[in-house]
């Protein structure tokens, strides 16, 4: 690792000021950033630890909305009785990220800021049409994700919270890539009174995406059967030693059906 200063502000304003420093970078759980720094793939002048900011932690469930502070770790979401009562699919997703030690450190804000093409939370955020709340604005999920590792965030902008509209039912089906523990392909399906949303992670070279045909079919009738005959093209899917583009395209269909079945 290259050397850097380590700062741990306790307010958002102090964090934003620290991040204004040239080449300063945010750190939350460090479960992505520390391995990156070890590989010398980044050279920040300073790391600004966001986990000491009280207003970025915690969970609130009210008026059909689940709000999760950006610095809330995956284990806290997985174990939240409040969220489980309203939106169990989100707890299940968080509880299957990586392993227990990763879940004890990794945060929802870090995951959504990083937008790894195989990460789990982006599927839930896009699949529910959640709102990404930052220290300067609110960004709808449909505008937030802009391709792998790319988001609408400006330099130094901090994800302070995520706001999820609670669905009538939802489920996340994850085909685990066992070496990395990320999703080889994962699909989040959520049913609202206004229609169904389907978001796919792990599959596309453009990162997380919505599968419009499946959404239309499931909005007409929410059943595995209504997905019959639908498929996504292999063109533009990720191909690597773990799976070809054809295989991932196939998995999108399989995981969508499994998610619909699990949502019930």
């Amino acid at each position, binding site marked *: *690792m*290259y*050397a*850097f*200063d*380590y700062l*741990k502000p306790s307010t958002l304003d102090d964090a934003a000021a620290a991040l204004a420093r040239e080449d300063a970078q945010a750190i939350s759980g*460090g*479960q992505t950033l*520390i*391995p990156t*720094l*070890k590989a010398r793939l980044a050279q920040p002048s*300073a*790391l600004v*630890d966001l*986990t000491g900011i009280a207003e970025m932690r915690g969970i609130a469930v009210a008026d059909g909305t689940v709000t999760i502070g950006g610095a809330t770790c995956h*284990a806290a979401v997985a174990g939240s009785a409040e969220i489980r009562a309203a939106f169990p699919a989100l707890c299940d997703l968080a509880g299957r990220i*990586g*392993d*227990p*030690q*990763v879940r*004890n*450190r990794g945060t929802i804000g870090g995951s959504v800021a990083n937008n790894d093409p195989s990460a789990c939370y982006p599927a839930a955020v896009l699949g529910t049409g959640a709102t990404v709340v930052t220290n300067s604005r609110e960004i709808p999920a449909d505008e937030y994700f802009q391709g792998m590792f790319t988001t609408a965030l400006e330099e130094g902008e901090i994800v302070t919270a995520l706001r999820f509209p609670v669905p009538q039912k939802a489920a996340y089906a994850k085909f685990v890539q066992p070496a990395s*523990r990320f999703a080889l392909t994962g699909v989040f399906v959520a049913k609202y009174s206004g229609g169904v949303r389907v978001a796919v992670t792990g599959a596309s070279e453009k990162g997380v995406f919505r599968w419009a045909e499946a959404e239309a079919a499931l909005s007409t009738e929410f059943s595995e059967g209504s997905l019959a005959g639908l498929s996504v093209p292999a063109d533009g899917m990720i191909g690597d030693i773990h799976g070809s583009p054809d295989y991932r395209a196939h998995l999108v269909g399989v995981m969508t059906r499994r998610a619909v079945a699990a949502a019930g």
Partner: protein
Amino acid sequence: MAQVSMTVNGKAVSGEVEGRTLLVEFLRTGLGLTGTHVGCDTSQCGACVVHIDGESVKACTVFAAAADGAEITTIEGMANADGTLSVLQQAFQDHHGLQCGFCTPGMVMSAADLLKTNPSPTEHEIRDWLEGNICRCTGYHNIVKAIQAAAATMSGQAQAAE
């Protein structure tokens, strides 16, 4: 350099660290607590698992500065006060839950975290929990048996105490 202070296995310690000093380096090099191992250094293997404020974490993926003010428990803090092995450690010995022993500190620290929140886990729950702990020797069966046996002994002790 910055000064950090924390409680490690019940003792107050402090030291100078760089921003980039990992918690595992501070424990091993700074404090000489070499029971915590570094297997992969890429956040995959779990040989470095310690507890921060009671929760298991990978000490190779936490900065020492981030643990300032925290309570840390390492494998050196797991034995009974008289130096005998704790129930969980003894179960690893009794059930041959280790061969080379390199993964064992992480396995014990991870299992201890599991048993704290789930005192009688099923075999499936144990295997699921150990997702982040890799063992090259045992094939895991005896590790799982050791944790099941420790859970049984500990719940027997808890009942006897009531």
